[in-house]
């Protein structure tokens, strides 16, 4: 990658501002690049353009009022965020969740994960200059959004889970529509493979680019598909299973080299696995209550507690300190993209700027989640 010309320090260098308004940063992120021609010599990410201080908001209101906020951090996969938050409260208050609700939660969370991966797929390829896949991706994602809108009432920031269950029961139409979607999606995955996975231009743009070694991933706390692309089979759904995940049969796809192509492949395989999970959750769906009894007032005990879930982009941890009232004393949200982006300065040093765009796309970043 490094040419002789690049090593020559005496050549003219210049600063390049990528963002804050740049389509390839997938949000309001600014990268200050020190460039030597086409090569990135040094990279400095600037965060905070869209920071809303959710953690402060959590300290200023009773915990139920924070629930809508959780959907607004990672707006592409809001349900896992709802899930982690209600699970933490349920753990602190000892609330039992009916089995039907658990099945609905898992099925809808996984649908949301597929939707998020589809949007990532489209956006990633758009970054690489391929326009067509995003249109197919959005077509499929639209089906998921319609299914979720029908039961949750909204299309993006669902706020669907409640402590003790979910906000509205699902009906047979949901089950039927989801099964139709799964069937359709399996066929579509074949199209994606033909269109993208085997495409020579795509392979040349991603293979061997932005290699994250397992050791580097550990130092930076990388999680999610980015970590699994480096060959470490770490998934909270398996390692620290919550809800009904221990009963489900699914695999964790891993890559071998840790480059952009492996991260792509892992996510495509994850879509397949998520479809398997949804199918099983629908098969299990028992009759019964969708919302159990939860005490009206829950006082958060005066101690620290955390709960981890696997969001679409990696490990999401809510760390809460209560103060014996319904207002938390401190809530820390560990968002996966924060750690996933922090390695970019080391990863992209000496890289071509076109490859930087490829790496950024493959990391699947959602900036409002970092600027939470």
């Amino acid at each position, binding site marked *: 990658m490094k040419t002789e010309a690049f090593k020559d320090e005496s050549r003219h260098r210049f600063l390049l501002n990528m963002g804050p308004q740049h389509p390839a940063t997938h949000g309001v992120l600014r990268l200050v690049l020190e460039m030597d021609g086409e090569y990135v010599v040094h990279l400095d990410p600037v965060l905070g353009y869209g920071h809303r201080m959710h953690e402060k908001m959590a300290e200023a209101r009773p915990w139920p009022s924070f629930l809508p906020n959780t959907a607004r951090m990672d707006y592409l996969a809001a349900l896992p965020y709802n899930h982690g938050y209600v699970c933490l409260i349920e753990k602190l208050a000892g609330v039992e969740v009916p089995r039907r609700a658990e099945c609905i939660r898992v099925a809808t969370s996984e649908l949301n994960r597929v939707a998020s991966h589809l949007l990532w797929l489209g956006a990633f390829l758009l970054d690489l200059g391929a326009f067509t896949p995003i249109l197919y991706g959005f077509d499929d994602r639209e089906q998921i959004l319609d299914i979720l809108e029908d039961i949750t009432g909204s299309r993006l920031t669902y706020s669907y889970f409640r402590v003790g269950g979910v906000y509205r029961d699902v009906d047979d139409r949901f089950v039927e529509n989801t099964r139709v979607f799964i069937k359709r999606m399996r066929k579509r995955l074949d199209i994606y493979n033909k269109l993208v996975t085997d495409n020579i231009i795509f392979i040349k743009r991603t293979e061997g680019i932005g290699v994250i070694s397992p050791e580097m991933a*550990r*130092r930076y706390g990388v999680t999610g598909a980015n*970590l699994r692309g480096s060959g470490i089979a770490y998934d909270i759904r398996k390692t620290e299973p919550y809800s009904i995940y221990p009963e489900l049969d699914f695999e964790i796809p891993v890559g071998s080299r840790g480059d952009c192509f492996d991260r792509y492949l892992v996510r495509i395989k994850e879509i397949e696995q998520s479809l398997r999970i949804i199918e099983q959750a629908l098969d299990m769906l028992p009759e019964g209550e969708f919302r159990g009894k939860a005490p009206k007032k829950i006082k958060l005990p005066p101690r*620290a507690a955390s709960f981890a879930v696997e969001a679409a982009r990696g490990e999401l941890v809510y*760390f809460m*300190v209560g103060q014996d009232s319904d207002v938390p004393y*401190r809530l820390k949200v560990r968002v996966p993209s924060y750690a996933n982006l*922090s390695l970019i300065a080391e990863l992209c040093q000496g890289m071509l700027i076109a490859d930087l765009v490829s790496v950024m796309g493959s990391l699947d970043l959602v900036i409002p989640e970092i600027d939470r």
Partner: protein
Amino acid sequence: MTFQELADQLGAFSLSLTASDYAASGVYADLLLEQRQLRQVVQHLLEQEFYLVFATAVSLKPAACLVYQFARHDVLFRVNLRLFAHENESPTISDIFHAAMWYEREIHDFFGIAFTGNGDMRPLILSEMDAGFHPLLKAENVCMDAEKLGFLPLADEPEAGDEQARGSLEDA
């Protein structure tokens, strides 16, 4: 890696790992440190293939408490490291776990805790204009005692009255 193995290894540094009720707290072990012990323990955790899940702070009396959560990729084993940032200072671990760089800068923004040895303490999320403004630092009248919230300070730690330092912080 089991709880006992890590407890034995840390015993070599004459530190005692406390078991934590996983069902209630979400972590298996809890370790309260003094500032001088932090770096060697963290170095040990890196060698033992732990990764840093997050680092954060909780604004408390008499001093803010830093919380570092570590976990492993191969088995389920979460550990919380805690230490009190007396005088609003703490040693950096950003050269050991690179993930800590952004967490430390964020804590510096929000709580005004300076990390000694961290070469880059520029604001990360706030802007340069917000110097001295620390949104998550609790005011005197609402700041809780560490003991009341289960963050027991070390018994032999000198009672550092860092209330003076609060709010009037210089960059490291």
